[in-house]
């Protein structure tokens, strides 16, 4: 096995046991990027020089017995996280040459934990989309089949993990942007509770929804990273003062007796192949002792409408600062998708339409939250397909202005309610494209979600499958 294929846990063990150095580990990742990224296009920027210097410094610290939790581990970070002195583009030409003078809180925390930043990954421009096709830096391709999309918006992050270009990745999700590409790329993606991880320094998409989180090869790695990221931040007034759990402690707890809800509404319009694999997963979960409970959730089709309005309204305001005066290029540099979203959001907030659209959407948001609250009176977690389909062919997103919303139909409700969720790979389609399912829990139930996901993962061992690149 090559070093770049390791999980965080394996890499950490190797570093601590001096089986290899962080420089060797980092070089293995950089080599892999050099070999495959031309095909995948997962990275917007590769920070080779800085990464090697950081790896060298990490080796020195390791030699001195430092055991910071990510010391010497190469990570990729989605290019909508501000990184001090490293170009940050949000995959838009508006920010072609923007060099932030500050780090996102997430980046600060990862640096404090000792990570080696290997590069910035591609996304749909401004995180607007579920394909990476709206990126101004080219589409990222799915490592399982480069004729297909990786999903998005954290498509670069998910592809960088599936292609073993890096040990772990940081993405962000507004509604689906972690779970959906993780699903299409056959990797683990954890979207934490809104407010669990700081948004400071993350280029805002929809402020009331944005949640940074890890995309990893294993559930255990996701827990490890969440441990680093979670917590209140004085730079983000919406972060929770609740103390983070110990996310690693309960990973191996038996899940017998756990009540897992399954709702028919989440199988509407889902392809047969996806349905079949998710049903198989449900059987595995049952075998592990969990109790499957039929529930009825609010139909996702309405949540698409709610999400469309809320997200575009907030987008129209969040993108107002890009006027080309203090940084970046002027507003003519926005791509079609951003312009469309700004226009719709502006319209939905404008005089005479606010009540009909924005306020109405916020009210339905309340209905959705209440619906989940009711559901969680009877079940501990909800299990559903992450995506109705497997990865679509390159070009698919260009057919409909609502493409992204449709692809994210099954992840949007929980995002709107601010709930945590995880994508867990559970199989391959006939044409060898990954299929996953998601586990959704109440606010701040990450510990339980990770526990159930880990137990399933260890039982099913999907991770033994690797794409042929």
């Amino acid at each position, binding site marked *: 096995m090559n070093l770049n294929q390791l999980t965080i846990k394996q890499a950490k063990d190797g570093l601590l046991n001096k089986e290899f150095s962080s420089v060797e580990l980092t070089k293995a990742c950089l080599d892999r990027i050099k070999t495959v990224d031309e095909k995948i296009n997962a990275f917007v920027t590769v920070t080779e020089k800085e990464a090697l210097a950081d790896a060298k410094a990490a080796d020195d610290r390791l030699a001195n017995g430092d055991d910071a939790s990510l010391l010497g581990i190469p990570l990729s970070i989605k290019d909508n996280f501000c990184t001090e002195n490293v170009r940050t583009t949000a995959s838009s030409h508006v920010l072609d040459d923007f060099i932030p003078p500050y780090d996102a809180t997430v980046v600060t925390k990862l640096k404090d934990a000792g990570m080696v930043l290997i590069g910035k990954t591609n996304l749909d421009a401004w995180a607007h989309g579920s394909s990476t096709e709206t990126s101004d830096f080219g589409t990222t391709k799915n490592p399982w089949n480069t004729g297909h999309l990786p999903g998005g918006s954290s498509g670069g992050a998910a592809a960088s993990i599936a292609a073993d270009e890096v040990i772990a990745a940081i993405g962000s999700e507004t509604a689906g942007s972690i779970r959906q590409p993780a699903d299409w790329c056959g990797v683990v993606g954890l979207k934490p509770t809104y407010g669990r991880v700081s948004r400071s320094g993350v280029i805002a998409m929809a402020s009331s929804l944005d949640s940074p989180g890890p995309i990893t090869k294993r559930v255990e790695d996701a827990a490890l990273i969440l441990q680093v990221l979670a917590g209140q931040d004085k730079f983000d007034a919406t972060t929770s003062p609740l103390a983070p759990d110990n996310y690693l402690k309960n990973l191996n707890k038996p899940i017998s007796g756990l009540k897992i809800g399954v709702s028919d509404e989440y199988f509407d319009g889902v392809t047969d192949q996806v349905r079949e694999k998710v049903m198989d997963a449900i059987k595995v979960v049952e075998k592990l002792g969990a109790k499957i409970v039929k529930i009825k959730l609010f139909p996702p089709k309405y949540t698409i409408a709610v999400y469309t309005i809320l997200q575009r309204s907030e987008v129209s305001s969040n*993108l107002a600062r890009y006027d080309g*005066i203090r940084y970046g290029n002027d507003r003519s540099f926005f791509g079609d998708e951003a312009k469309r979203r700004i226009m719709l959001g502006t319209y939905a907030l404008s005089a005479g339409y606010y009540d009909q659209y924005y306020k109405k959407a916020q009210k339905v948001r309340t209905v959705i939250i209440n619906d989940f609250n009711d559901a969680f009176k009877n079940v501990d977690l909800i299990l559903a397909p992450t995506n109705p389909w497997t990865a679509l062919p390159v070009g698919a997103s260009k057919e409909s202005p609502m493409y992204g919303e449709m692809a994210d139909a099954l992840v949007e409700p929980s995002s709107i309610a601010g709930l945590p969720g995880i994508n867990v790979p559970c199989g391959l389609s006939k044409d060898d494209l990954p299929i996953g399912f998601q586990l959704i829990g109440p606010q701040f139930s990450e510990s339980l979600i990770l526990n159930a996901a880990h137990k399933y993962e260890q039982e099913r061992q999907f991770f033994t499958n690797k794409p042929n690149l």
Partner: protein
Amino acid sequence: MKYTPVIGLEVHVELKTNSKMFCSCSADYFGQKPNTHTCPVCLGLPGALPVPNQKAIEWCVMIGKSLGCDTPLFSKFDRKNYFYPDLAKGYQISQYDEPFCVNGTIKLKSGKVIRIRRVHMEEDTGKLIHEGNISLIDFNRSGVPLVEIVTEPDFENALEVKEYLQKLQQIVRYLDVSNADMEKGNMRLEPNISLADSQLRIANSKNHKPSAISYLPPYKVEVKNINSFRFVEKAINFEIERQEKILESGKTPVQETRGWDEKKNQTVSQRVKEEANDYRYFPEPDIPPIRWTKEQLAQIQSQMPELPDEKFERFQKDFGLSDYDAEILTREKETADYFEEAVLVSKNKVLPKTIANWMINKKVDSQQTLPAALIIQISLTSQTSPTDEKELGKLIDEVFSQNEKAIDDYKNGKESAIMYLVGQVMKSSNQKLNAQTVKEKIIHKIKE
């Protein structure tokens, strides 16, 4: 007069907090090198988030309370979206439908009440400097806490506006929450002016409270760029005349924003709005709402100093000062404090009225002369007439007969009542009496 001016006022007051409204950059930007007081938040860099300043919020509530506002228990911030090069984020964080304070008043000397619609918290913009065909932007001011005070259109002339502004300035200075210096832009005013048909207005207001406006003209003109009380008076008078002429010619003035041009001494059209501004307000998702407990609001109230109106009344009552003296001495809090300090150190050997006279007529420099030094000065220079015991007794009896309440007050332990009586006696004499002697005699007489 055929037309009655209908004038409302928006005032922005910059708070003198240590840090800005939503970031920890220093708010003390005046005279600093450009763009040296900025950070990702107030520069509106990608990803930066606002975290509100607790002190600024409390000060906003204080201003509201001192204007007699209601302070609802729930309040929130909203985004006001518009584009301008000095607006870093493309929106201003402000308050829309649930401001910190609503429904206040300021009472003018005439007894007329100006209603205050709302007092809310927001942030300042950067500063634009125009140089020929370019404009330069300094973001040092961006994000400085700003309190906006909005009146109902209750003013009818420039003098009322001026008096209101002076009172407002006095109040925020008393609260010590702003320098309220017009020239430095700490206090900025935007009057909106229109003219109503006087007949219609009277006819419509008959069934209402005297100050309630029931007839508003179908247009209004907003005037910006006013940086002194003098100019606000001029600008309003100019507008009244200008609009009158237009109305006389049978037309309606255009609804617009005008600026005060101090060189031309007139208002000039700034921009004809092709469409109404549409600020697309919505709740600020980055800042959780504010919910007060009654105790918290009481706590803020308890931190407020005595306000000018209360002080004015107390000075008259306790120290026997005239309207005129009390008004001058309470105009600025520092003067009032100096006076009270002098009264205290005089240990009743000098009449408060005499101290007031000295301060007002001799223009005592409070920076140079300590209150104690002033009292020594007064004592040394005060040559009093030898006392005619009999004459004095008569004067005291006369004053007693007219001021039974003050005597009762004194008997009930209100020490200050004695100084009032002393003042009355001194006033009724045509000679310069020794206050201490008068005081002793009065006390003696009361005890008889």
